[in-house]
């Protein structure tokens, strides 16, 4: 079969799947699946026969994992979902992240309250990863605006990077057995101590396979006008690490705001990184004019990409998992909004078009070429 673009769109009212040929001219929409139930995490597992996974976070009946083996034409609930051990005392409140694990059919799942689960059979059974879920810090983490969530899982060989809001960045260098907080240079603008060991409100972390040790982070910025102890805390929101997350430095200079949620790396160029700066109060783009910002030199300078996007009067938010990029030779970006639009940024974000304009509020967008 010729390459197909598969987009998974997790919304407030279920998961949708959009499919297009490589030309990306026209996308056919399917869904909603798990209708009426919020979906915060999706995954297109491209190992072997592609499988699509989606969390289904039912406020009445609890958290489920949905799986499709036919490219999103139908979904079924897996045999079980992640659950804390009965004597743990915690109860699952949301599923925030689904990622491929190291082994075939292995999945990793980040949840609220912040904890990590692993499945070795494609989502039918789950075990809690105790090294982080029962970490000494775990009972001290506090919920951010979206709850106490483990929302980011980034694998890099034996290293495993986790983003927790608000817990910060945690790093395992032994394949997920043990973890330590790695937040040197990551600010917590909302705390008296700007640089605590842990407790930061990390929003998203991204890496590229061609740049060993390099990571990009969207942290909770927006503290440039802070008037509390220590004075203003500018530029703590967009960060870079070149030592596998042990230390971080700001790359926010040149952005209109250092607050935002998603951060992406170009699939073929580790120096090209994308963010969506937001006004920290309204959580919409500055001047009510949506734009994605791109750096082509690893964060030294930034340029604005907005051709085709509304020029004013737009107050949507793009959430932490609401933006992704495909891996075709000339990649396209995609973002979904809290007002239900799905946008495509052709030519690496140079030209934007609205693919669907009346979906439910969008939490999550993932794309894969299959």
């Amino acid at each position, binding site marked *: 079969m010729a390459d197909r673009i598969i987009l998974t769109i997790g919304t407030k009212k279920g998961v949708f799947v959009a499919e297009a040929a490589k030309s990306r001219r026209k996308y056919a929409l399917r869904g909603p699946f798990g209708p009426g139930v919020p979906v915060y995490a999706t995954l297109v597992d491209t190992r072997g026969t592609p499988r699509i996974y989606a969390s289904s976070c039912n406020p009445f*009946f609890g958290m489920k994992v949905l799986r499709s083996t036919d490219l999103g034409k139908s979904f079924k609930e897996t045999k079980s979902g992640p659950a804390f051990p009965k004597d743990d005392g915690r109860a699952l409140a949301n599923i925030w992240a689904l990622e491929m694990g190291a082994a075939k059919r292995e999945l990793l799942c980040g949840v609220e309250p912040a904890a990590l689960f692993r499945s070795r059979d494609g989502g039918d059974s789950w075990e809690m990863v105790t090294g982080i879920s029962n970490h000494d810090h775990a009972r001290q983490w506090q919920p951010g605006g979206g709850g106490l969530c483990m929302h980011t899982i980034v694998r890099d060989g034996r290293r495993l990077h986790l983003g927790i809001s608000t817990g910060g960045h945690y790093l395992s260098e032994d394949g997920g057995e043990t973890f330590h907080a790695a937040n040197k240079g990551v600010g917590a603008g909302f705390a008296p101590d700007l640089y605590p060991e842990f407790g930061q409100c990390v929003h998203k972390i991204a890496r590229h396979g061609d740049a060993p040790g390099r990571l990009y982070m969207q942290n909770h910025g927006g503290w440039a006008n802070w008037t509390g102890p220590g004075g203003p805390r500018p530029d703590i929101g967009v960060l870079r690490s070149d030592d596998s997350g042990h230390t971080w430095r700001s790359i926010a200079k040149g952005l209109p705001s250092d607050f935002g949620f998603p951060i992406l790396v170009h699939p073929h160029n580790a120096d090209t990184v994308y963010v969506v700066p937001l006004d920290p109060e309204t959580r919409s783009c500055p001047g009510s004019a949506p734009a994605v910002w791109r750096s082509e030199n690893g964060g030294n300078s930034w340029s604005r990409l907005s051709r085709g996007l509304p020029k004013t009067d737009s107050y949507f938010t793009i959430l932490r998992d609401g933006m992704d990029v495909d891996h075709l030779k000339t990649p396209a970006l995609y973002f979904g909004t809290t007002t239900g639009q799905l946008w495509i940024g052709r030519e690496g974000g140079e030209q934007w078009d609205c693919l669907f304009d009346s979906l439910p509020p969008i939490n999550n967008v993932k794309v894969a070429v299959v």
Partner: protein
Amino acid sequence: MRPPAIIIHIPGPLRVFCSGAAQLPLAAQTVRDALRILEQSQPAFYRNVCDETGTLRRHLNVFVNSDNIRDLDGIDTMLSPGDVVTILPAVSGG
């Protein structure tokens, strides 16, 4: 003393988790006992009704006949022969 025979009425969205049954007959002294029996006999259904700590999910209402157990003795509400226990999502208008 033999526990009273009662009926659990299954809401439509959850019947798939108990082989399509609309009602489950069982014998239980209290709502808590009934849930404990369901945990053993209908584990997939039970997981939809109670979380992993055993707590009834927050947005579900349980009625014994026409009374919400919230207005009785909660999950320790005593059951009588022929009682119908209904589990409903707490959906309201507006």
